[in-house]
């Protein structure tokens, strides 16, 4: 069982988002970067599967050298090896193309991603990657079990859940309930120093998009406070003033 887990290096959830260079670049000053939380769940689930039935877990990231602390952390959590494709992750299409080029040469049985990255919220890499590899994709999974070359998964659908079975290989994207994240222990952190982290150069040159600028939402006009002893007024205001109920 060979599992590939795709990792994004993203700003910590407590980050106050600001931009530089005339609102064209995300301001990384003072920002703590972490493994994208959904990718961390995908990684942990991959480890649980290989611990039970044998196999290896490879973590892959498309990013520059500054992503290496997060990649190294995947090794500390338990990945066997890691790959960094040395490029700025321009957009989902570019990232999927780079990972597809690598995955084609390695024949993975299962590829896991997070359901989206918490910075650009695209949620597209899994589907793009699966199509580029010509294999099925199942998104927003909350459980996965693998047996005899078949994966059985539960996924979120709009307004409910769906149970899906699919023969390997496939790409699946992790949703919150998949598992609980693992904190690396000291042995893992020591071992991570000597595990292989391969740096691969970019292949292909299809550029499909460019981010031309960012903007922060306009500040709210100020809260209208309703006295606690007249709380029932809220309903009247929502009906007649805000006109939302």
């Amino acid at each position, binding site marked *: 069982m060979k599992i590939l887990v795709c990792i994004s290096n993203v700003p910590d959830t407590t980050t106050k988002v600001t931009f530089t260079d005339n609102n064209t670049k995300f301001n990384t000053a003072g920002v703590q970067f972490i493994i994208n939380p959904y990718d961390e769940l995908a990684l942990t689930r991959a480890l649980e599967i290989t611990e039970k039935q044998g196999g290896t877990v490879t973590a892959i990231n498309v990013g520059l050298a500054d992503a290496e602390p997060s990649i190294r952390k995947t090794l500390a959590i338990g990945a066997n090896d890691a790959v960094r494709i040395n490029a700025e992750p321009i957009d989902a*299409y570019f990232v999927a193309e780079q990972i597809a080029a690598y995955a084609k040469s390695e024949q993975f049985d299962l590829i896991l991603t997070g359901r989206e990255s918490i910075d650009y919220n695209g949620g597209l890499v899994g589907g793009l990657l699966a199509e580029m590899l010509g294999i099925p*994709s199942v998104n927003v999974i909350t459980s996965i079990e693998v047996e005899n070359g078949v994966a059985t998964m539960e996924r979120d659908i709009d307004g409910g859940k769906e149970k899906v079975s699919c023969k390997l290989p496939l790409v699946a994207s992790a949703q919150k309930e998949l598992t609980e994240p693992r904190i690396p222990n000291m042995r893992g952190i020591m071992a991570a120093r000597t595990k292989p982290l391969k740096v691969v150069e970019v292949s292909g040159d299809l550029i499909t998009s460019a981010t031309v600028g960012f903007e922060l939402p306009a500040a709210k*006009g100020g809260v209208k406070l309703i006295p606690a002893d007249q709380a029932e007024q809220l309903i009247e205001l929502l009906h007649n003033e805000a006109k939302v109920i």
Partner: protein
Amino acid sequence: MILVYAESIDGNFKKSTLEAVSYAAGIAQSNGTQCVVVSIGHVDDAKLADLGNYGADKVVAVNSAKLVVFNAEAYAKAFASVAAAEGATVVVVSNTYSGKAIAGRVAAKLKAGIASGVISIPYTSNGFVVRKSVFSGKAFADVNLTTAIKVLAITPNTFDTHTFGKTANLTTADGGLSDADFISNSVEISRVTGKIPLTEAELVVSAGRGMKGPEHWGIIEELAQVLGAATACSKPVSDMHWRPHSEHVGQTGITIKPNLYIAIGISGAIQHLAGVSSSKVIVAINKDPEAPFFKAADYGIVADAFDVLPKILDAAKKLKAAN
């Protein structure tokens, strides 16, 4: 030509589908081209024809026994084959779980640039630029798609439906599918009935740790039911298993954009605000006057939720009874 994927559940189009059709019809109109809608799976002809009212010039139905249940590989292949046959230049899907399940696959097939979470029409004065939410709503990004074909996954409850009153031309296509295109199998589908799915809700009543325990959620559910709202919760509440994970809104949960978001006993941490800040009207009820939520809210009540909720519920019941 602008092509739209018309998502259906059990033979019915969703509100987000009608929004997508009107959005695409608007783009088609301003470009002097046609809006073609693709429906996959079984939908009655009357419902297909009704899409003309929302702006469809033509509706292509792709249906077979195997397509009754959603399948990402097969649906994406059928949709992309119609896109190629019709010569689509812009492809529109809803930014829902099913929409996104096919969006990436379709983009890869068409070698098309793709943007998801789109909240604007395309601006074409300098390229093809759309605005999307990023950082779970903490900011917006303007993205220029530079390929010949573009795929847009548009955010539900962002664009209005419009009445175009067209008569749509109904046709069918086979989607170029064979048995080999159906690799994954849907084993079982369970939808929550009688409750409004959070991702599609126009009104949301949400509560946090201020409720002190899961046994106190009765009044939250009752208020939601009276208003016709969905229920949601903060991260600590779902982490403590007071409420299911599917109700968790915020940066690591669901990002929502309802018309009304009522936050009860939620302080308003930056991660939570990220997931709800695009709501049109926000109400915060919290006993701490310093709670950050009051800075993001339109209406606020500084009070213990247990003191004011009965009054609010009572007023909501009276309003509903009178209307």
